[in-house]
């Protein structure tokens, strides 16, 4: 039995590994998801029972030496971080650009970043004014959201965490829709069910947010497996932070994605902080990217503040995922410039100097500088874009706040695909009670 398995596995790994990301420093473990990680390099002499151990999981060489790996024994150089635009916004010479950014796309990306920044600033203020309960900004990480979103196809399905509002914006979710969602009013597409910033839209192939961290990662793998079975030619994109990568669901998702050969792109936003826990307390080893090859997953570390690098990395990851029907892991190195949420004051636990240093590398400014250098953008366009965004956000907040809340009866809808009798009875009882006692229902809840 074991011998048969080993023989079958050797048969599957015959030949060289598929080429990794051409032109990029991709660290491809076994990029084809169904190949065992311990495949024999083709440069080695052919395996024999003397110098290799064949086992159901692959084939490994013997050694007479006792070479420890990892931990304090062999500190490895970290995986390098791919970038195309430096901290000041200047083009990095000789950078690998397998997917040049068209002007029109680049400008749309930047305009969306401006709108995202404006939404974050004004929605945050609106929450502080008590107009709704909660908000989270994505400042410092705009390039990761927009750069990756622009490289995906609209038919690709996104499973995001809660700090990727830029992705759904780029896909076409309007600022008015965002405002309706945060106020939970009757126009809200989610019927006022989810807490603020938990956006979702079936039309835009963006799943509503799951608050328990990392649960979306196995979902993305399952959706990607469905795409594979039905040969849809699309990928799932799963977003998460470096803190969420400590959850068991992260391990489950990566291991399953590799073994199923699921076309999923994992985009980790390593922003340095999980609420007050710095990344240095979150893991040992080489961050999140360091884990990818161990799962047999093609991996790339990318400068999460470099919009063009994130775009290229994601576009290449998508090509790899589709061609090889296998997962890809990106670790976007960035910085959470804002607080974790409106329930947090990060000045209590991190140094002002650190925050200032990162803000000097603001990803939106970097991309703007690069656009200006291309001759695609200027100060006048920037001022106009920011003024227009500000007007749009203010109007959206006012309209959303004025709109009535969802009617009482909707509370019972969508628990099941068809309302079962016990919920019909409970809804009827509530409506009858409110009809008999109008004072029992708060004035801001429409009864119907």
């Amino acid at each position, binding site marked *: 039995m074991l011998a048969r398995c080993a023989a079958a596995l050797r048969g599957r790994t015959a030949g060289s590994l598929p080429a990794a990301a051409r032109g990029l420093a991709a660290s491809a473990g076994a990029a084809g998801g169904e190949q065992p990680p311990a495949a024999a390099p083709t440069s080695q002499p052919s395996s024999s029972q003397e110098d290799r151990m064949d086992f159901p999981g692959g084939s490994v060489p013997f050694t007479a030496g006792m070479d420890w790996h990892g931990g304090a024994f062999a500190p490895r150089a970290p995986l390098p971080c791919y970038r195309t635009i430096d901290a000041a916004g200047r083009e990095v010479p000789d950078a690998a650009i397998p997917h040049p950014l068209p002007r029109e796309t680049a400008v749309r990306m930047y305009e969306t970043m401006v709108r995202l920044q404006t939404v974050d600033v004004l929605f945050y203020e609106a929450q502080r004014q008590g107009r709704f309960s909660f908000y989270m900004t994505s400042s410092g990480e705009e390039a990761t959201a927009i750069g990756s979103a622009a490289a995906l196809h609209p038919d690709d399905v996104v499973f995001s965490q809660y700090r990727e509002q830029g992705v759904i914006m780029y896909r076409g979710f309007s600022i008015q829709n965002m405002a309706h969602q945060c106020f939970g009013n009757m126009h809200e597409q989610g019927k006022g069910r989810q807490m603020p910033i938990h956006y979702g839209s079936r039309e835009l192939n963006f799943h509503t947010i799951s608050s328990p961290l990392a649960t979306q990662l196995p979902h993305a793998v399952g959706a990607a497996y469905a795409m594979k079975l039905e040969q849809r030619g699309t990928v799932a994109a799963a977003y998460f932070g470096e803190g969420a990568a400590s959850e068991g669901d992260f391990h489950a998702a990566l291991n399953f994605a590799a073994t199923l050969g699921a076309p999923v792109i994992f985009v980790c936003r390593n922003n340095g902080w999980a609420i007050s826990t710095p990344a240095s307390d979150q893991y040992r080893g080489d961050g999140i990217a360091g884990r990818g090859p161990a799962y047999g997953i093609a991996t790339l570390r990318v400068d999460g503040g470099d919009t063009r690098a994130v775009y290229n990395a994601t576009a290449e990851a998508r090509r790899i995922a589709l061609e090889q029907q296998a997962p890809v892991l990106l670790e976007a190195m960035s910085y959470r410039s804002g607080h974790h949420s409106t329930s947090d004051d990060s000045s209590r636990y991190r140094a002002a100097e650190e925050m200032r240093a990162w803000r000097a590398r603001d990803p939106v400014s970097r991309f703007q500088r690069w656009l200006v250098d291309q001759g695609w953008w200027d100060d006048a366009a920037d001022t106009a874009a920011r003024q227009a965004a500000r007007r749009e956000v203010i109007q959206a907040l006012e309209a959303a706040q004025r709109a009535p809340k969802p009617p009482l009866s909707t509370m019972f*809808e969508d628990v099941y695909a068809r309302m079962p009798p016990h919920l019909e009875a409970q809804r009827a009882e509530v409506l009858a009670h409110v009809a008999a006692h109008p004072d029992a229902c708060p004035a801001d809840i429409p009864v119907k």
Partner: protein
Amino acid sequence: MALRRLALSGAAALRTSQGHAAALGPQLLRTYASTQMTVRDALNSAMDEEMARDDSVFIMGEEVAEYQGAYKITRGLLQKYGPKRVKDTPITEAGFTGIGVGAAFAGLRPIVEFMTFNFSMQAIDQIVNSAAKHHYMSAGQVTCPVVFRGANGAAAGVAAQHSQCFAAWYASVPGLKVVAPYDAEDSRGLLKAAIRDPDPVVVLENEILYGESFPIDEAALDKDFTVPIGKAKVMRSGSDVTLVAFGKMVGYCLKAAELLEQEGVSAEVLNLRSLKPIDRDAIAASVRKTHRVVSVEEGWPQHGVGSEIMAIAIEECFDDLDAPPERVTGAEVPMPYAQNLEAAALPQVDHVVATVKRMMNK
């Protein structure tokens, strides 16, 4: 209350209870059907037919493919439908549960097998927070037609972490449907209904019943036979007391009813079949007829399924009751391994008989 009474009066009953448990079997069921079928074959044929009917149905879990299931429920399916639709997974309950949920979001109809529901605790976040709520949280935009199935409840000789009932846990969650088949007809009809259902359905099977044969009607062998989720079934009509149970305890109630008949007590046996939605109307109709109700379950008493049946009886037909409703449940302790203690921790047929006789002042 009922438990305390049982604890006081139960010692004598326990001495004879194991004999009755061993004697339980399909021979006790009087029907006119000609065909016999095991619960295992019923579940297996249900999945086979649904996979043939709908390409989007697939099975995943530990040991479901090459090994044909830890309890052989997926026997032959790998050979018939191939490794893409019958998928052995790495050993991560939270992983394959979450992948099943994601595949359901994407339009497939996954059947996720837990080797037993004891291990579903490692995945309960995916079931409760994702599968059950996503339709609601997405305002009806995304459905999650996934089936979670496997052995639930007490097994034999496998102690605290392999022998417990999660019916009350899952049946408390809005967005989940929960069914618990007893015989071959239930197993076929409920599992096929679960696979076709647009919502996530938890199918609580029973390991000890897998090998039991039951008579099954020709109609229940039809490839389009389903049992409606949310409807209970009167297994035996009676006029003095209603015994309400699900899964394996339905068999115990049928046996108890036979014994009670010999004592001149006419017991009606209601097989819940579905725990969520629960058939309030059927419970109330039966209690209005018999004026007495006893619930029987293997699970723990506090916040148990029996507690819900008591509440339904009191809310729906308080004035019809001639005696306080009572529960017969498992003891409120983790399952012990020692054979005598294991038996003592579980409801036995004699407990049901003793409870009814006391209730009837006999």
